[in-house]
């Protein structure tokens, strides 16, 4: 098993009564893509932030264990084999496309060519452009290239394609798959787009409003999975509305 998360419970320090994650457990094999879906506020991004070490912050309430390669999470995080792609591309506006992609290498003092990554995402002729000169889709491509430049073992994707149109999404799915296969990267993708989840994932978990797993499927090709997920998410959304009304 590459990554194993067991019994994750989490709530923020300033609202401990609201449990964001409740007994969440899952595991992923090397090279697999796990997709986490669920309605807004169900704790999808929190899982990524816990795996990346951004959370828990001081005084947050957290219990559970995350192991990677059967070792403690911190050891993996310090090895620099993790990459993260945010919903916003988080590009440095003062740096060109090429410089942005090179940032992780600069931090590690590695002098490696980035031509292959640039070629895969089709950015060769834009490498000297500043982010402000690029469209939203192109910026996401730069962030994608940056995520792969260090050949990460684990890539966390926090709704990186949510702001893009269908044509851009399709092109980026293709590039992502190419890069994942090339580097045999394990991916955890958070999304609220079920179609995207089914296109990119190998296995899927759906989180409910109480921060627990309400559906888990290891076979993404299962019949009626789309409608099953849609139903679960809508049902959960209604539950939340009712809960909000009561409270």
């Amino acid at each position: 098993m590459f990554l194993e998360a067991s019994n994750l419970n989490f709530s923020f320090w300033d609202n401990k009564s609201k449990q964001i994650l409740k007994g969440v457990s899952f595991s992923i094999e090397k090279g697999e893509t796990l997709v986490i879906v669920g309605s807004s506020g169900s704790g999808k991004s929190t899982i990524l932030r816990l795996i990346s070490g951004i959370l828990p912050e001081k005084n947050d309430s957290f219990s559970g264990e995350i192991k990677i390669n059967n070792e403690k999470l911190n050891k993996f995080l310090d090895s620099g084999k993790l990459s993260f792609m945010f919903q916003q591309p988080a590009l440095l506006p003062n740096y060109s496309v090429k410089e942005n992609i090179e940032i992780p290498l600069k931090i590690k003092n590695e002098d490696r060519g980035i031509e292959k990554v640039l070629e895969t995402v089709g950015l060769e002729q834009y490498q000297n452009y500043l982010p402000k000169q690029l469209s939203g889709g192109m910026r996401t491509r730069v962030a994608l290239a940056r995520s792969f430049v260090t050949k990460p073992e684990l890539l966390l994707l926090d709704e990186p394609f949510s702001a893009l149109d269908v044509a851009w999404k399709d092109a980026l799915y293709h590039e992502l798959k190419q890069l994942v296969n090339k580097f045999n990267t394990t991916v955890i993708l958070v999304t609220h787009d079920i179609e995207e989840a089914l296109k990119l994932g190998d296995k899927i978990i759906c989180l409910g409003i109480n921060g627990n797993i309400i559906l888990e499927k290891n076979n993404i090709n299962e019949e009626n999975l789309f409608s099953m997920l849609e139903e679960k998410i809508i049902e959960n959304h209604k539950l939340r509305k009712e809960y909000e009304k009561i409270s």
Partner: protein
Amino acid sequence: MKKFLKYTFLVVILVVIWQYFGSTDSTVRLYISSPTLVVDYFMGNYAGLLEATLTTFTEAFLGLIIATLFSFIVMIICFYRPKFLEFILPIMVTSQVIPIIVLAPFFIILFGIGLTSKIAMAAVISFFPIFVNFVHGYKSIPKNIHELMFIYRAPIIFKIKHIYFPLAMPSIMAGLKISATLAVIGAIVAEFTGAKIGIGKNLFVSSIRLDPDLMMTSLILASLIGIVMYGIVKLLEKQYGSWYQ
């Protein structure tokens, strides 16, 4: 170019109006002299006036450099010790309730009548806008960039060099532009309190002697210092801030 011509035209119009009233109305002449009289005065005393201008410029310029360096040093300490920023920021903001100009006599007592007291005054008055704008720039850096650096385990030196300074640059430059003119005010006010030479001293003398020629010449030269200081900051911004312009 069109814009430049418009402004030049406006200045010419104002000078013509000033000349007209300055030469036809003795009361106006007594208050604000006239352009031809100012030019005559400057030609007759240019050596002393230029020396005074250079002195005030040196005081303001050195004051601005010291303030900039000091605010950078304080911020670098804050980058290493973020809690220090939380501690120092309220003190800095509260300190602004003291009208800093009242410190001028204190600096004269402390450093004497020479350049040092004026440089100190210019530095103190121009420190706050640079520092506060730097803090604002730092706090405006998107959260996900901080998080990305955390995930990549970027060392603090890398973050200071590649993230904090460059991304706070628009705010740093905004602070420098405010401080560039404040530094001139600081130097001039300190010269009012006591100086051997300087534009501030000339302005002070002109008010005692009721000398409008000296006053207007000094005002124009003080404005020139302000414009040059602002121009230097603009040049720096062109060099380091091209990405956001």
